[in-house]
Each structure stands twice: as structure tokens, then as C-alpha cells.
């Protein structure tokens, strides 16, 4: 059993688990959307005093903050106890494209060129993560949701706005991948 859990899971397992999380939240009278937490965090830090958007009862969203705590714990358990140092098995084509950009083939889950602490504390590395995160936070709230809220919950409910948002996610992602990354690296 542990051996099975320690191997990378096939995609359909993860898809089923994500759908299950969504159902679980629905049956607890909630909805699945992670980026709403960023707003809650702003509010909990007192941003409601200056900006009306953050002036709401953030304590009612504690359940969702717990979802974040659970995500951190899940990552920790997975890394410490259920991992056999597996290297992410991406396609050869991707490895070649990335090496042309100067990003070496994976030796765990994340590229050293971005996620190692040495890289993160160079000006370039710091800005990549900071601005990337900034765009995620700004864009998610502007679009009213992120991957979980739009791509999963929204599409499941056949919402046209969510489809437009997902198309936007891809427009942005393709611009970064094909235009920005070659310029940055």
C-alpha cells in the first residue's frame, strides 16, 4: 500500500480526488475556490479599514483558510513520507525546449533555476516569483476565480464566464511560455 502511495499517481486519480473535494465542499454547504482565501487574508490583516472590497466578515471564511492549512500539511506529508525522490517524468520534447532556454532537466519536482534559494535571491529570480505571484493574485480576483473556482467549479456548472476565464488563463499562459520565457531566460 505504502509502495503504491509512494509512486507518482496517474492523472485520473488526481482528477477524481479533485472532483471528490468539490463534492465534499458542496455537501458541507461551501464551494470550491482557493483564491478567495487571498482576499480573506488581506481582510484578516486589516485591509478592510482602507479598502471596501476587504471589509467583510473574514471569520466566516475560516473553513477555507483551513483548506490552505490542509494543503500545506498534505504537501508536507507527501514530501516527507510518501515520496521516493521521484523525478517528474515530463516529455522529452519539453526537456529539449527548456534546455534551449537554459533550464536543466528535472531532478525533482521544481526547476533549480527558479526554486532554489540561490536563484530566488537573485534579482531576476526574486522578480520572477514576485511578479508571477502578483499577476496570479491580481488576475484571479479580477476574473473572480482561479483554476479551482473557474476551471473546475465553474466549468462543472457549465458557466460561460468560466469558459471565457479559462480561455484567458491559456492566452496568458501561452504568452508567458512562448514570448516572455525566451526573453527572460
Amino acid at each position, binding site marked *: 500500500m505504502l509502495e503504491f*502511495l509512494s509512486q507518482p499517481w*496517474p*492523472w*485520473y486519480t*488526481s*482528477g*477524481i480526488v*479533485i*472532483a471528490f473535494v468539490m463534492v465534499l465542499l*458542496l*455537501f458541507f*454547504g461551501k464551494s470550491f475556490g*482557493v483564491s478567495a482565501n*487571498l482576499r480573506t487574508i488581506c481582510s484578516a490583516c486589516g485591509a478592510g479599514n482602507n*479598502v471596501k*472590497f476587504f471589509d467583510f466578515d473574514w471569520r466566516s471564511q475560516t473553513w477555507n483558510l483551513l483548506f490552505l492549512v490542509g*494543503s*500545506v*500539511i498534505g*504537501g508536507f506529508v*507527501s*514530501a516527507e513520507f510518501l515520496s521516493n525522490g521521484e523525478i517528474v517524468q*515530463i516529455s522529452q520534447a*519539453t526537456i529539449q525546449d527548456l534546455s534551449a532556454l537554459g533550464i536543466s532537466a*528535472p531532478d525533482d*519536482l*521544481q*526547476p533549480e533555476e527558479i*526554486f532554489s*534559494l540561490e536563484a530566488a535571491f537573485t534579482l531576476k529570480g526574486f522578480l*520572477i*516569483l514576485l*511578479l*508571477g*505571484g*502578483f499577476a*496570479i*493574485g*491580481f*488576475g*484571479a*480576483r479580477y*476574473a473572480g476565480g*482561479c*483554476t*479551482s473556482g*473557474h476551471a473546475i467549479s465553474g*466549468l*462543472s456548472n457549465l458557466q460561460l*464566464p*468560466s469558459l471565457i476565464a479559462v*480561455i*484567458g*488563463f491559456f492566452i*496568458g*499562459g501561452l504568452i*508567458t*511560455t*512562448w514570448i*516572455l520565457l525566451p526573453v527572460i531566460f
Partner: protein
Amino acid sequence: MSKSEAISWFRIQEMFRFQSFHMYGIIGTAVVLGVIITYVIKKYKLRDYQGNPIVFTPKEMSIPRYLIGGTIFGLGWALTGACPGPMFVNIGYQYWAILIAVGGAIAGTYLYGAIKDRLPH
């Protein structure tokens, strides 16, 4: 998430380069199941554990809001290789550098809240 490598920057790159089915498989499975489940909940008017009806709030229609917001989100998603959920899983994985992106995301959310009324929706 982490067990299917959906938190990996490499996997997101592979997705945006259309070089593997992996991420499409994950999202596709979740959405197909989600559509069926949502349909069943609506059809049989299922209730949550407290007996309240499960309601789905339709999203307000607008094109600029979702298209512009979505595109900005996508720019960041491909850059950091993490959307909001996986960001936190990465903290658990002790990829501490992701904390910079989390800080950025909170700042981005704050800026949106501050200038919201001046943006096209």
C-alpha cells in the same frame, strides 16, 4: 495534487507547450465528473448535511472582466508554475522560494481591491 505532480512547474510548462496529456487528463477528469455531479445535484435537488438546498450561483456575464483577468492570471501561472492551491502545497514541500510568490499574490489581490472600481468589468 502533489502526488500527480500538478504542483510542478515542469508539468505546467509541458501543458502550455501541448507536449503531454497529463495536466489535461487531470483537469478533464475533474471537470467531466464535476459536470455529472453538478447535474445530479440539480436534478434531484440534493441538500447539504444541514438540510439546506445546494445552490449554484450563476456567474455574472461579462467578457472583459474574465478575459483580461484570466489573461493576467495565466501570465503568472505559467511564470511561477503554480496556481493558488498548489502554491500552498509547495510550502508543505518546503520549496521556500514559493513564499515570495505567495507574498506577490496577496499584494496583487490587495491592489485589485484598491483599484477595482477603476477597472472595466
